[in-house]
């Protein structure tokens, strides 16, 4: 019987996307955003927190680059992730 693979955490999935845009700073950046704005440990990040987290990420990233396209791509990817997770959490 094939072994069931454990799903990556919400935090890991956010970091994975962020890594494309911020490189090695991604992990620390997202951890700080979660701790400072959501006042919780990165491991406790849940789908319900994503909308608020994305707002804060957009605000900071918009101060790091004036390339609105990059900001927009990054935020869109995060929003898509949020809806994917929300859908997968819906009862069948």
């Amino acid at each position, binding site marked *: 019987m094939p072994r069931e693979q454990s799903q990556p955490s919400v935090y890991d999935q956010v970091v994975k996307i962020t890594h494309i845009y911020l490189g090695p700073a991604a992990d620390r950046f997202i951890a*700080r*955003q979660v701790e*400072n*704005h959501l006042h919780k440990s990165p491991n406790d990040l849940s789908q319900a927190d994503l909308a*608020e987290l994305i*707002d*804060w990420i*957009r*605000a*900071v990233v*918009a*101060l*790091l680059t*004036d390339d*609105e396209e990059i*900001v927009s791509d990054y935020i869109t990817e995060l929003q898509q992730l949020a809806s994917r997770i929300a859908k997968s959490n819906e009862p069948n």
Partner: protein
Amino acid sequence: MNPTDIGVPDNLLPMPRRTRHEQQAEVEAIFTSIGDGAITTDEFGRITRVNPAAQELLGYSEAELLGEWFPKKIVAVTSDNQPINLMDRPITKAFLTGRPVAEKTYYRRKNGEVIALAINVSSILLNGKPLGAIEVFRDITFEQEVDRMKSEFISLASHQLRTPLSAIKTYTHMLIDGFMGELNPDQKKSLRTVIRATDRMNELISILLNVTRLESGNIDSTPKVVQMDKIAAEIIHELELMANGKSINLSMRVKGKDSTSLKTDSLVVKEILTNLVSNAVKYTPESGNVQIVVKPRKASILVEVIDSGWGIPKAAQEQIFSKFFRAQNIVKRETTGTGLGLYLVKGLIDALGGKIWFYSQEGKGTTFSFSLPRSLHPKVRQGKISK
């Protein structure tokens, strides 16, 4: 009937409702009339409002700023006009931390001049959602100049005070040693008091000099590889006499097998450790214990100075690194402190790229811990270091 007719004071009457248009006009008027520079941005970092004071300070017109990307248009620089990392700008820090940030920084004006500013920046939130930021700033060039002049004066005055002190000390020693004829025990006792007082004054002058040097960026830095355990052993040796005077057991140990080497300025590290250990001895009752523990870590060296002293009261703990601050329980026991030692220690550790913190329980003792990076921190360049 009008409420004022029956004696209700005017200020207790409900405010007349304002239209949205009036409220907007009021906000606009407040923003425009702020004496300090004020700029707001939207959630994309684009400038949405600029008041006249900001235009005057930065040299740009409103039309040149509105809609521009704030970090690009208004360049934050170091005092020597080098652009600072976007992550280190106060506005970015405010968004990263979610808290208002108050800092001194430098902006480059339109004509290229560098202007020193005190900045307060907060994110603008609506129902918890960040909509932008407001940054308020004022020119502190004059304050900085006054500060510099004050530091120069203290430095000069301290130097001038030291010279006569060394003459007083030398001749007092000669008197005690009988160079000018034998003295009776009372005379010798009095002269020893003179020596203690001159030592105390020397110590005071040294600390004042160090504080002013640190604040004005005038502490010489000669980075080299040093062994923290050797420095700790030297400090123990130097302060042994002081500890013995109070029957205090002064010791040190290294916890861990890794090397304790780091690249830094050894004189500054000695100054830090001397201050912490002499404080620990000073504020520990007779027959107590003071121990230095060196803990090598992968990228840093951690040092703890543990004492069994009177401790720092909870209420005083927040201010312990403030200039001239002395806790009440200490003032009663030790009248001679300046309240500058820990301020200096923190400034020096910051300047070396390290961190300091403490844990204290009143009546039980205090542990001051500091860590210094093993590799040379960019702040510790050959030449000068400053806060």
